[in-house]
C-alpha cells in the first residue's frame, strides 16, 4: 500500500467496528476512564507539532508517556493499544499523505514507552516509581519513534531527526510532569500540565511556518534576474535542485544546506542594474556579478555568511578555486546548470566540463558527488529540469532575446550575455 492510497470503505467500516469493540471491552474491563484516555491518545495523533524543514511529532507523545507511567501494566498495554488503533483508523480515514508513516511512528513510540518501563521493572525487580517510569517511558518513546522514522527509505524523514529532538524533549517533560502531578498533586491540577502542549505546538508551528515563508521569499528573489532577462527562466530553480542534492550527498548539515541553496538562488542578483541606472542588460563578468550580489545582500541586511559565501563561491566561473566545500557546491551547481540547462542530453558534456575544470580538493569532492548522483540514475538531471519547467511555461509570454550561456576564453564561462 502506498502513502496516498485511500482505504476501501468496507475495510474502514470493518476497522472502525473492531476498534469500537476494543474500546467497549476496555471500558468494561478498566472503566470509562480507560476508554477516555484511549480517546485522548487517539486525538493526540491528530495534532502534529511541525518543525522547520519537514517532520513533526504528534502531541499525543505526552499523554502516552503519562499513561504508560501511571496505569497498571495490563491496563496500560490495553489502553495504549486501543488509543493507537483508534488514532490510526481516524488518520487513515482522512487519508492524508504521510498517514502511514505517522501511524507507524506513533505505534512504535507507544511500544517503545511500554518496553522501556518493562525493562526498568526487570532491572530493579520491582515497582518503578512514577518519576523513573515516566523518564524510562520518555526514553523508550523517543527511541521507538526515531527507529521507526529511520527505517523509512526516504531521506526526508532522516533529515529531520535533529530538528524533531527539541519537540520530543518538550513533550517528554510535559508527559512526565502530567504523570508525577497526577500521582502527587491530583488529576485536576495535572491537567494544567497539558497547557504547555498548546504553546509548544503554536511556537514550533510558527517557527516552521516562518522558515517556509523565508525559503519561498528567497525562491521568489531568485526569479528577479530571470524576469529581468539576465538569466534564463528556470536557472535558479534547477541550480537549487542540484545544490540540495549535492548538499545531501556530501552530508552538509541543515544550516549549511540553507546557506548553499540561498546563495545559489541569489547568485544572479548582482547582475541587475544598479539603482538609478536605466537599462536591463549587464556586461559584467561573473566575478563582478558575484561581488555585486554580495554587496546587495549586505546592504539589505541579510545574512553576512551568505554574502561571504556568494563572494567566495564565484558562481558561473567554471575553473575558479573554491576556498570551502560550500563555495564549491554553489559554484558547481550553478555552472553545471549553465551548461546543461534544459537539455538532459547535455549532462555528460556538463560532467566532463566541470570535472575537467575542478583543480582544488573541495571542487573535486563536489564533482565526485555530482558524478555519483548523475551516474546512479536517480534522474537528478530530469528532476531538476522538471523543477524549472513550470516557471518556463509561465514565461511563454516574454520575448526574451535568446538568453543563453556562451563559453568564452580560457575555460571561463561568460553566462547569459544578452544578444540583440
Amino acid at each position, binding site marked *: 500500500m502506498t502513502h496516498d492510497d485511500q482505504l476501501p470503505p468496507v475495510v474502514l467500516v470493518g476497522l472502525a467496528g473492531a476498534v469500537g469493540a476494543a474500546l467497549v471491552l476496555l471500558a468494561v474491563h478498566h472503566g470509562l476512564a480507560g476508554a477516555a484516555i484511549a480517546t485522548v491518545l487517539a486525538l493526540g495523533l491528530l495534532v502534529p507539532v511541525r518543525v522547520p524543514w519537514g517532520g513533526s511529532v504528534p502531541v499525543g507523545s505526552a499523554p502516552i508517556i503519562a499513561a504508560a507511567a501511571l496505569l497498571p501494566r495490563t491496563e496500560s498495554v490495553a489502553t495504549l493499544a486501543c488509543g493507537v488503533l483508534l488514532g490510526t483508523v481516524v488518520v487513515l480515514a482522512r487519508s492524508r499523505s504521510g498517514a502511514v508513516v505517522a501511524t507507524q511512528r506513533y505505534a512504535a513510540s507507544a511500544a517503545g514507552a511500554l518496553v522501556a518501563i518493562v525493562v526498568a521493572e526487570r532491572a530493579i525487580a520491582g515497582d518503578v516509581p512514577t518519576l523513573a517510569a515516566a523518564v524510562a517511558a520518555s526514553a523508550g518513546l523517543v527511541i521507538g519513534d526515531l527507529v521507526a522514522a529511520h527505517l523509512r527509505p526516504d531521506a526526508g524523514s532522516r533529515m529531520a531527526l535533529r530538528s524533531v529532538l527539541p519537540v520530543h524533549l518538550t513533550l517528554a517533560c510535559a508527559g512526565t510532569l502530567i504523570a508525577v502531578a497526577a500521582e502527587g498533586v491530583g488529576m485536576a491540577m495535572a491537567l494544567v500540565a497539558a497547557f504547555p502542549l498548546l504553546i509548544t505546538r503554536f511556537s514550533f508551528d510558527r517557527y516552521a511556518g*516562518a522558515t517556509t515563508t523565508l525559503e519561498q521569499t528567497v525562491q*521568489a528573489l531568485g*526569479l528577479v534576474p530571470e524576469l529581468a532577462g539576465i538569466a534564463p527562466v528556470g536557472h535558479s530553480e534547477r541550480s537549487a535542485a542540484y545544490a540540495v542534492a549535492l548538499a545531501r550527498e556530501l552530508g552538509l548539515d541543515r544550516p549549511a544546506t540553507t546557506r548553499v541553496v540561498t546563495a545559489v538562488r541569489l547568485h544572479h542578483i548582482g547582475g541587475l542594474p544598479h539603482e538609478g541606472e536605466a537599462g536591463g542588460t549587464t556586461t559584467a563578468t561573473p566575478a563582478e556579478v558575484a561581488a555585486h550580489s554580495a554587496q546587495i545582500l549586505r546592504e539589505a541586511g541579510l545574512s553576512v555568511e551568505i554574502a561571504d559565501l556568494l563572494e567566495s563561491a564565484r558562481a558561473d566561473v567554471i575553473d575558479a578555486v573554491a576556498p570551502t566545500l560550500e563555495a564549491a557546491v554553489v559554484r558547481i551547481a550553478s555552472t553545471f546548470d549553465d551548461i546543461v540547462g534544459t537539455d538532459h542530453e547535455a549532462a555528460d558534456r556538463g560532467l566532463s566540463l566541470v570535472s575537467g575544470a575542478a583543480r582544488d580538493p573541495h571542487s573535486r569532492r563536489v564533482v565526485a558527488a555530482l558524478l555519483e548522483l548523475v551516474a546512479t540514475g536517480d534522474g537528478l538531471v530530469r528532476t531538476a529540469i522538471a523543477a524549472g519547467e513550470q516557471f518556463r511555461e509561465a514565461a511563454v509570454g516574454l520575448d526574451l532575446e535568446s538568453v543563453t550561456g556562451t563559453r568564452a576564453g580560457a575555460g571561463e564561462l561568460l553566462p547569459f550575455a544578452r544578444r540583440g
Partner: protein
Amino acid sequence: MRRSLEIFTAITALAVVGAAALTSEPPRLIVVLTFGAMIVLAENVSVLVHRAGAAGGTSLTPGFMLTMAAIAVFGDDPSTVVGAALVGAFEGLYIPHLRQRDIGIVAFNCGQFALSSAAAALVFTSISATGGWEQVAAATAAAVAYGVVNVSFVLPYVALKHGERASAVWADMFPALPNYIAWGLLGLLVGLVCAELGPLAIVLLVIPMGIGRWTFSSFSRVKDAHDRSVELFIRLIEAKDPYTAGHTERVARYSLYIGEELGLSPSRLEHLRQSALMHDVGKLAVPSRLLNKPGRLTPEEWDVVKRHNSAGIDIVANVDFMRTMAVVASDEHGRYDATPSVTTPPELVLEAHIVAVADAFDAMTSTRAYRRALEHDVAVDELRANAGTQFNPACVDALVAALDRRGERHGAGHETEVHQFAVTPPVAGVGSAGLGDLEVAR
C-alpha cells in the same frame, strides 16, 4: 512624576514586606536564594546569549512562573508571603538596567514584583484548598491576584515613561493577560510537585522553558531575515522604475487605510499589506526602456508591457506564498466590473479592488515621467467618476474617508518624495494620462 512612582513603589514594597516579616517566622533562606538565582538567570539568559532586540517593557517573563513555583514550595505557612515577596523582588534584577545604572527602574521593578508576588501568596495561602478542583481554583485566584497588582503598577509607569495614553498601554498589555493564569497555574503546579518529589521536578519546567526561548529566538531570527528579504524585493522592484520612489510603500499604506476602514481582520490586513507591497512585481519582467519612456507608448509597446507584466506575475505565482499575492497584483482582478473567475476566493478579489484604488490614487498624486502630480481633489474626483466601473465604490469611499479623517492631503503641492527629472514632466490633466501605473496610453 515617574521618579515619585518609583520611590512610592519601592517604599510600599519595603513597608509591606517589613510588616509581614514582623508578624511571621522568617522564610526558608535556601528556598529564597535558590529560586532567586534561577529567576535572575531565567530573566537574563537571552541577554547573556545574545542581545535579542528590545525586551518590551510589558512582556511577560519566565521569572513569574518560578515565583509561583516558589509560593507552592513555601507551602501553606504564614512566612510564605514574606518569602514570595523576597523571591519576587529578584525578578526586577535585569542586567541591562543594572548596567545602565538605572536604579529607579530597578527599584520600581523589584518593588512591584515583590508586591505582586506577596498578593499571590496571600491569596493562595488564605484559600485553604484540600485538593482537586479547589486547588485549581486557589491557584487561579493567586495568578489573577499577581496579574492585577502587576498591571496596576506597570500600566501607569509605562504610560508615564513613554508618554503614552493609559488606554494604549492597556491595549498593548491586554492580549497577554490570559498568559498570567496559564503560566501562573503551571508554575504553582511545578512548585506543588517540587514539594512532593524534591527539587528535581523544577527541571521539568526549566527544559521546556529553555526550548521555548530557543524556538522564539529562532523564529525572530527567521522572521527578521524574511522582512529583510521582502525589503530587498521591494527595492529591486523600485530600482526597475526610479520614477516611482516610495510608490510601493505608499500603496501599501493606502491599502491598509482602506482595509481598516472596511473592517478587515488583522491577519487579512497583514496579507493585504504584503500583497500591496508586491503589487508591482510584474513590472520586473517589463523592459526598462518601455517603463521609463517619457512619451506615450505605441499600441505595440503597450501590448508588450501588458504581456510582460502578466507573464512576470505568472512566473512568481509558481512560488507558493506568492500565489495569493499574485492574484491581488493582476490587472484582471483589480477592475470592479470585471467578472472574476469562479476559482478566485472573494476575499482576494476584494484585496485586488483595494490595491487597484490605492495604486491609482498614488499614481495620480505623484509626479511621473509623463506628467506632473494631479491635485488631491482632482484625483479624488477621478476615482469617484470611475467608481462602479473601474473601481469598487466601497473602496473609493473608504479611502476618501480614511484620508479625510487623518487630514492627509496628497498630490500637487503635497509631494514628499520627488524624483529629479532630466526633462521636467508636463502639467497635464486626467484626460492626458490614464489611471494606475501601466495605463499610460490607454
